[in-house]
């Protein structure tokens, strides 16, 4: 593959090509349409694989960069590139996208063509947001996502779909409009400093803005991203949208769309506005913790299966936000990993709901019960994903949570304690859900004839299960990819960490960086590296690589 | 040269007037073809041979044939212009047409008259009409518009088929 091979463009536009191709297929030929959509979904995943295999772990900069003028008069460019973080997100998007498309084979029977076209366009929108290094381009893709999602919910949704769709649309639109203001403020401020009109994010990353300006821009970004995440007071669109969206829509929404909010924070708010970030830590942490506990409690009170999962998203993403705003490398790494984990486990949970919804057309938890007996494979998959969701060790959720909590703990024990309580509640509502749906006797006669997972449905879960176990047992490849991005963010927001992680482990350059004062914590007792014996925690790690 | 121009100009205008004024549509089409042929000759006069040929090929040989087909297909039972809407303003149209013409001429007189002689038939370089030059310009400088135009034609073709197709 030559150096200037436009990999990202290919990844970006493969779904779009599929969508355009679909436009030319007669809408009556639903099977052809399904095949084409699936092929392009899968193809999208395949072409994105080089982002994993060809990713240079040692390169701290942007990779697979493509750059061309777009609107020269205002300095906007077609500027794509990924670092470890966005590469993982792109991979997640292509995978989940393919799975979501595959999962809709029998679920969508009306207006099939439009559905797949919207799905593929949505896919391109999400990918574009992740790979854009030009703020305007990012914003363009950000908005492109809204429309297909709106239609997905509004046309193929259930019950109150129009209400939910409009709510989703208006809510996110408000956020993005304010965010656009922030972008423009940044843009013009940058111009006043440098005299260059540019939306280049990499330039913004170098920008030193006055605290006051940062403050306002942060608020603007906050509204845009926090609604997308969603954080505590802005979350109410989520349960509605999730509940009423078709399965594939919920999966995409949960697994990827929400990640754009957190992605935005990590990519834009933190490194561009470091001072404001630090100033806003108390607020962000408070909102995150409220989100964790409150989301879990709300989840516990639900009667609607999907709504429960939706609220669990609020809780999990609160966790991710908390880890991020701990502003420690471990916390941010954990936060990013948690985002991926959430994509895997919650995506799978929505698929799981979708499977029985497709068979029974109800999401009332009380309508189910005893499904373990009838659908053993389904129950097993559900169990694995439940465990992944509640952070059972050796599955993916655990690593993310433990990193986040550890990262938060060193900053504040109280925060960590509150956040950890969310884990207890998480176990409670998930297991209760599992018990109510899977265990017990089959009391509802309508459930007796339910079919277990077929091969296609199982195929949608298999990659997610593999990933869950992989990340749980051996997350190193993922964490290594995050090393440079996290370090780049840290170098902006928290100067108390050394520029390279290696220095920290290096005894020679041990400089007494004063740790934050924590009551009761012993100060220097001995240098952390003095135990160079075989049982030291670092021993054998080199062998493990 | 001069004679040729005036002759052609006279033909062009006369045929144009005939096109617009003839009642019989088929005759109008014929006049239109003749008009186009004259225009093509004018192009030859302007050393744009390629364009002249294209004019004949596409306009006279293609588009107008289409018109002729349509004229024949639209086999009208009653005269096409029997009904006159009371609200139409024919004289106004004539007036405006004339006025616009007058204005154009006025502009030309104002704008070109003083320089007309000077800038006139600048050394008639043979290259301008050259097919090769047109080709270079078309396929290199104007490649994207060219592609766009071809897509436009494709779309128009499909559109025309869809429009003209009888409902099954």
């Amino acid at each position, binding site marked *: 593959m030559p150096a200037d091979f436009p990999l990202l463009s290919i990844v970006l536009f493969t779904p779009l090509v599929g969508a355009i191709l679909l436009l030319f297929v007669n809408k009556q030929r639903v099977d052809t349409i399904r095949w084409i959509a699936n092929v392009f979904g899968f193809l999208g995943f395949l072409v994105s694989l080089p982002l994993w295999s060809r990713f240079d772990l040692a390169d701290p900069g942007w990779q697979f960069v493509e750059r061309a003028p777009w609107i020269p008069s205002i300095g906007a460019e077609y500027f794509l590139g990924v670092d470890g973080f966005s590469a993982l997100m792109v991979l997640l998007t292509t995978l989940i996208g393919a799975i979501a498309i595959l999962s809709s084979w029998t679920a969508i029977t009306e207006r099939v063509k439009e559905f797949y076209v919207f799905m593929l366009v949505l896919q391109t929108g999400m990918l574009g947001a992740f790979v854009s290094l030009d703020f305007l381009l990012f914003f363009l893709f950000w908005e492109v996502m809204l429309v297909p999602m709106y239609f997905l919910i509004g046309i193929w949704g259930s019950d109150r779909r129009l209400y939910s769709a409009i709510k989703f649309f208006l809510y996110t639109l408000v956020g993005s409009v304010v965010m656009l203001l922030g972008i423009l403020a940044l843009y013009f401020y940058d111009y006043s400093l440098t005299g260059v009109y540019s939306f280049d994010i990499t330039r913004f990353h170098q920008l030193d803005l006055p605290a006051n300006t940062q403050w306002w821009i942060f608020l603007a970004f906050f509204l845009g991203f926090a609604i997308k995440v969603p954080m505590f007071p802005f979350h109410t669109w989520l349960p509605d949208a999730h509940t009423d969206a078709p399965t594939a829509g919920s999966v995409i929404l949960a697994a990827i769309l929400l990640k754009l909010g957190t992605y935005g924070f990590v990519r834009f708010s933190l490194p561009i506005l470091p001072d404001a970030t630090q100033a806003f830590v108390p607020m962000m942490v408070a909102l995150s913790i409220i989100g964790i506990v409150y989301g879990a409690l709300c989840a516990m009170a639900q009667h609607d299966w999907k709504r429960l999962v939706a609220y669990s998203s609020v809780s999990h993403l609160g966790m991710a936000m908390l880890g991020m705003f701990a502003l420690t490398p471990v916390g941010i790494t954990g936060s990013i990993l948690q985002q991926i984990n959430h994509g895997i486990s919650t995506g799978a949970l929505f698929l799981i709901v979708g499977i029985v919804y497709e068979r029974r057309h109800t999401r009332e938890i009380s309508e189910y019960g005893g499904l373990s007996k009838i659908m053993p494979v389904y129950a097993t998959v559900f169990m694995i994903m439940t465990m992944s969701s509640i952070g059972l060790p050796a599955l993916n959720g655990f690593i993310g949570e433990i990193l986040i909590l550890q990262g938060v703990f060193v900053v504040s024990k109280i925060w960590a304690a509150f956040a950890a309580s969310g884990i207890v509640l998480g176990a409670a509502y998930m297991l209760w859900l599992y018990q109510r749906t899977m265990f017990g006797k089959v009391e509802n006669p309508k459930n007796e004839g339910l079919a277990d997972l077929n091969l296609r449905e199982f195929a949608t879960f298999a990659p997610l299960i593999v990933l869950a176990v992989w990340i749980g047992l051996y997350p190193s490849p993922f964490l290594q990819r995050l090393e440079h991005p996290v370090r780049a963010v840290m170098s902006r927001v928290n100067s108390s960490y050394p520029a390279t992680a290696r220095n920290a482990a290096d005894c020679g350059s041990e400089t007494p960086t004063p740790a934050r004062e924590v009551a009761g914590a012993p100060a220097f007792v001995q240098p952390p590296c003095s135990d160079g014996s075989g049982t030291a925690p670092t021993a054998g790690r080199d062998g493990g690589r | 040269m001069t004679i040729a121009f005036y002759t052609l100009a006279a033909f062009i205008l006369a045929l144009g007037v005939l096109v617009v004024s003839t009642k019989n549509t088929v005759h109008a089409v014929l006049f239109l073809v003749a008009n186009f042929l004259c225009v093509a000759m004018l192009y030859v006069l302007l050393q*744009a041979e390629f364009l002249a040929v294209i004019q004949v090929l596409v306009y006279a040989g293609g*588009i107008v044939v289409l018109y002729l087909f349509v004229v024949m297909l*639209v086999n009208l039972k009653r005269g096409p212009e029997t009904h006159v809407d009371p609200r139409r303003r024919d004289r106004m149209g004539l007036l*405006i*047409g004339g006025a616009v013409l007058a204005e*154009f001429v006025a502009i030309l007189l104002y704008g070109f008259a003083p320089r007309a002689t000077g800038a006139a038939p600048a050394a008639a370089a043979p290259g301008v009409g050259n097919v090769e030059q047109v080709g270079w310009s078309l396929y290199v400088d104007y490649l994207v518009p060219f592609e766009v135009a071809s897509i436009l034609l494709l779309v128009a073709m499909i559109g025309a088929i869809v429009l003209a197709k009888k409902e099954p």
Partner: protein
Amino acid sequence: MTPITPAHYLVLSAALFSIGLIGVLVRRNLIVIFMSIELMLNAVNINLVAFSQQWQHVVGQVFALFVVAVAAAEAAIGLGIILAFYRNKETVNVDEITLMRW
């Protein structure tokens, strides 16, 4: 006789354009109206070619070619519409096509 200058061509073109214009404004037969539009386009082309000749630059001809292409597209679609319309209303008189009003 004065030599032929671009102004001559422009006058010719303006005249042809006006003839076409009058045709568009006055005639009621849709087909004739379309033909009048073709006349107007031709007037434009004469203009373009004349300037191309004057400036010794081929771009005018290229533009004329584009105009021809657009004219072809326009004729195809326009005539298609006329046919479709004729099938429904049995007329090509614009004065009978007045549904799209207040």
